[in-house]
């Protein structure tokens, strides 16, 4: 029995590994390689030339601005929401949780259109802003609103399960020892949830930089003014500027790599103190 069974499970094991590898290569690795190939197959010069383009630089800048606005706001909001939801039972809690998930279930295009309906020239709030001559959509504020909307749930969604698993015991212990709320949060809760929080922040950042659908709807795609990197990629591609489009795509990919590296560094630095 044993002699027959062992090679069989072996076979199954390697077959499964091969299958998983094949799948990963097909859906992850090959497309990523294709992007780099398209950007560089005519040498580095077209790439460097594309990077020097004023419109590219402004798109890069705006992409970073989008992340700088939405990541801090959604981190603070996400932490508050997670705290309230994980530590309290109240009527409407389930409803609050599903409302928080709306940005996941609503298509980004629809999200963009909702913002247009609300803040557009003929929109509910937009006409009021228009009377003050404040432009919301087709300019940076509208794009920031769209980015904040689509990245809203990440931090809360990552932190809630950690808080729930943790339980309130340590915090209560701290309280009986005389710690203030702020001290409890800073010294007890935050160290415990830091991985969940960090992961949530990274996801928020990645999505904020990469979001296309919702932002494209409200951007108006004004070159050098309201185009982010993903919009820039689409515009250049449609204008047959393949190298510029894929060059920008490479930069987007590198931004993602930078955030991953940052995460690794943070993990290593703080990882040593983890033995609590």
């Amino acid at each position: 029995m044993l002699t027959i069974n062992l090679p069989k499970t072996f076979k199954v094991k390697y077959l499964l590994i091969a299958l998983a590898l094949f799948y990963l290569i097909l859906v992850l690795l090959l497309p990523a390689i294709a992007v780099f190939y398209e950007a560089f197959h005519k040498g580095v010069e077209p790439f460097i030339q594309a990077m020097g383009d004023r419109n590219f630089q402004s798109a890069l800048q705006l992409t970073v601005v989008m992340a700088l606005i939405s990541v801090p706001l959604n981190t603070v909001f996400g932490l508050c929401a997670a705290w309230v939801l994980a530590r309290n039972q109240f009527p409407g809690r389930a409803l609050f949780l599903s409302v928080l998930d709306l940005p996941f279930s609503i298509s980004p295009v629809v999200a963009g259109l909702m913002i247009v309906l609300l803040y557009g020239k003929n929109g509910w709030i937009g006409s009021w802003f228009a009377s003050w001559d404040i432009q919301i959509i087709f300019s940076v504020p509208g794009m920031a609103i769209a980015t904040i909307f689509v990245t809203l749930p990440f931090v809360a969604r990552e932190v809630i399960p950690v808080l729930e698993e943790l339980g309130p015991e340590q915090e209560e212990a701290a309280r009986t020892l005389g710690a203030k709320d702020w001290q409890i949060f800073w010294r007890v809760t935050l160290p415990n949830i830091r991985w969940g929080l960090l992961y949530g922040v990274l996801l928020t950042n990645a999505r904020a930089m990469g979001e296309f659908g919702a932002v494209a709807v409200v951007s108006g795609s004004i070159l050098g003014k309201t185009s982010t990197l993903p919009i820039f990629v689409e515009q250049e591609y449609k204008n047959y500027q393949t190298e510029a489009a894929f060059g920008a795509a490479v930069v987007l990919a590198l931004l993602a790599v930078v955030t991953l590296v940052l995460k690794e560094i943070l993990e290593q630095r703080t990882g040593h103190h983890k033995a609590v």
Partner: protein
Amino acid sequence: APANLTLVSYAVTRDAFEKIIPKFTEEWKSKTGQDVTFEQSYGGSGSQTRAVVDGLEADIVALALSSDVQKIESAGLIQPGWEQEAPNGSIVTNSVIAFVTKASDNIKVEKWADLANPEVKVITANPKTSGGARWNFLGIWGSVTKTGGTEEQAFDFAGKVLANAPVLPKDARESTDVFYKQGQGNVLLNYENEVLLAKQKGENQPYIIPQDFNVSISGPVAVVDTTVDKKGTREVRDAFVQYLFTPEAQQIFAETGFRPVNEEVLAKFASQYPKVENLATIEEFGGWKKAQAEFFDEGGIFDKVITKIGRQ
């Protein structure tokens, strides 16, 4: 004070405007001493129209269809009568329909009638979503009705052509991808200027301009009155629109694939833009408002053709 203009246009005009704008700003500066900067936005004509109606503050729109400018007019942002404010009925460029083929194919497609050949697979976008595909459909239809055929014959012919279409992509760009990248179909119906632009960017494919009949695809330009009135400097905007009709600007349009509306420039490019004798404008279909309702609205001719070939 320096002026800042926002130009909203459709995707393929970008190469032309990026060359025209610096020339204009230079000329304007030397003439008046005023600095002008331009914000530019390019995208599908339909979605650009929608954005302007929703509040994208455009000073000047240059779109693919007069009906798109009419939509902005209906929204109250452009005063009626904009067609008379610039030369040539405010039409700044022309184009025609081209048949793009594949060098590797042995199938001969030269005339509209060849599209009905059951061996030919035709790629054209869905006229419900694509402005360009509306021209294609009017071309298919007009190739019968404007050459002595009856509406019944046109209906039959349109049915045969659409039955030859394996898919109806959502816009012109997607139909180009279906044809080139996915390798579907034997002939692609596309604007002549799109084909020439793709050619300049290295996508070289044989194409012909059907001579037996064609439609004049005209691109209008207009000043958005509400924006201009708010900003209060109409002069430079009007000057820019006028500049688009000068031989210098028309030359650039011609170089980037558009048929110039200036006769002298057109004569210079005669070999690149072969003259089509039987050329129909949208007015011959009753103007865009009528054509839209008759052909493309719910229950219109296009729907009837689709229903008919669906039943077979």
